[in-house]
């Protein structure tokens, strides 16, 4: 693998060919905010929070799906980008019913922490207050659609790590929502293997272990990393035990 030299926020760094800007920045200690990226599953470039400015490119590009190139000059934290990020977060908070005070993920929520790290002290857009349901039918897990940001991490881990294909997005636009099987209640899903990866992957309080109350839902991403390493790199899977 050839190495590429590039500049991120004034820092000269080198990255492996084929690496994404997000990976390269991460290794260089530059944290680019994102909500839809999850280590171990493919990227979709949907949340638009990791957009960066690349010199010579008129459009903003998502760091998660843009590969590094020799001589790239990247800015990840301009005033314009910060403004857009804050607006994106405000749009998310206005879209569904994210009531942090009474959320299982309060204090362990990526949406919440991004909001304060981006300086969002209030939401300037009118809250939509849509009517979404809570699916508590599963034996072990719950899904609160009010808190879903449609990052599709749960869908991607379900399809690409577990291979069950239980979760998907149905509908479109503002009506898009996460389903299990044929939009049946989760507890009725025949394909769900109850592996719980979706719960580990969720950045907000949308997916949770049953029994967790406000601010109790913490995630353990290392469990996902372990599985990804097993499946992709096949490090310890050698054919026979």
């Amino acid at each position, binding site marked *: 693998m050839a190495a590429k030299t590039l500049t991120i926020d004034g820092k000269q760094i080198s990255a492996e060919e084929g690496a994404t800007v997000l990976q390269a920045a991460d290794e260089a200690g530059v944290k680019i905010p994102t909500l839809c990226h999850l280590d171990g599953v493919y990227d979709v470039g949907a949340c638009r929070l990791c957009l960066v400015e690349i010199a010579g490119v008129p459009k903003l590009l998502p760091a998660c799906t843009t590969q590094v190139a020799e001589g790239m000059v990247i800015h990840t934290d301009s005033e314009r980008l910060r403004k857009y990020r804050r607006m994106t977060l405000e749009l998310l908070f206005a879209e569904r019913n994210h009531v942090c005070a009474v959320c299982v993920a309060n204090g362990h929520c990526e949406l919440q922490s991004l909001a304060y790290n981006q300086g969002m002290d209030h939401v300037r857009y009118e809250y939509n207050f849509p009517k979404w349901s809570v699916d508590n039918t599963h*034996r072990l897990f719950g899904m609160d659609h009010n808190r879903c940001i449609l990052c599709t991490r749960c869908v991607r881990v379900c399809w690409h790590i577990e291979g069950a294909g239980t*979760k998907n997005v149905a*509908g479109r636009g503002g009506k898009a929502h996460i*389903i299990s099987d*044929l939009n049946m209640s989760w507890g*009725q899903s*025949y394909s769900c293997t109850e592996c719980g990866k979706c719960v580990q992957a969720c950045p907000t309080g949308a997916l949770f272990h049953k029994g967790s109350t406000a601010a109790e839902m913490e995630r353990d991403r290392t469990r996902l990393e372990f599985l990804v390493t097993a499946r992709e790199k096949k490090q310890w899977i050698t054919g026979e035990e």
Partner: protein
Amino acid sequence: MIATPLHSKRNRLPAVLEHASGDKRFKILEVHMKKHQFRHDALIEVLHKAQELFGYLEDDLLLFVSYKLKLPPSRVYGVATFYHFFNLKPQGEHTCVVCMGTACYVKGADKVIAAIQDQTKIRPGETTPDNKVSLLTARCIGACGIAPAVVYDGTVNPRATPESAVKQIKKWTGT
């Protein structure tokens, strides 16, 4: 609205397949899938055919399609709900599609649809309680030269007016 826990889950597939074996339309649908070699990328084509045969896409039908195409049910449902052409609920005896394209809009399609709503007391996407009429809107049917256009049971009606639309609805409902 919080749904409560369920403790039994059941595979509906055997019942669906048994039901399908007695219905000729499922046979036709399967032949259509075979024509496409049960390929995954034929899903939309298959759903078109299924809707043509059954009028709408009910859950059991989607489950049948997902089983035959070897696709997870969530994929089939995700696709069926992405495209506005597919109905997951039964439609009325008659359908009235008002084109809401720009040309029709600037020529008064909004007034036509208001008149129909007033007459039927239903909104676009709904069906009258007696199941006679479904009211739908289209994004543009490309008949801008004869705007505003309304499609009654598949037949395009040019230069519609609130009066002509109400007349047609009355004809259907017998009022």
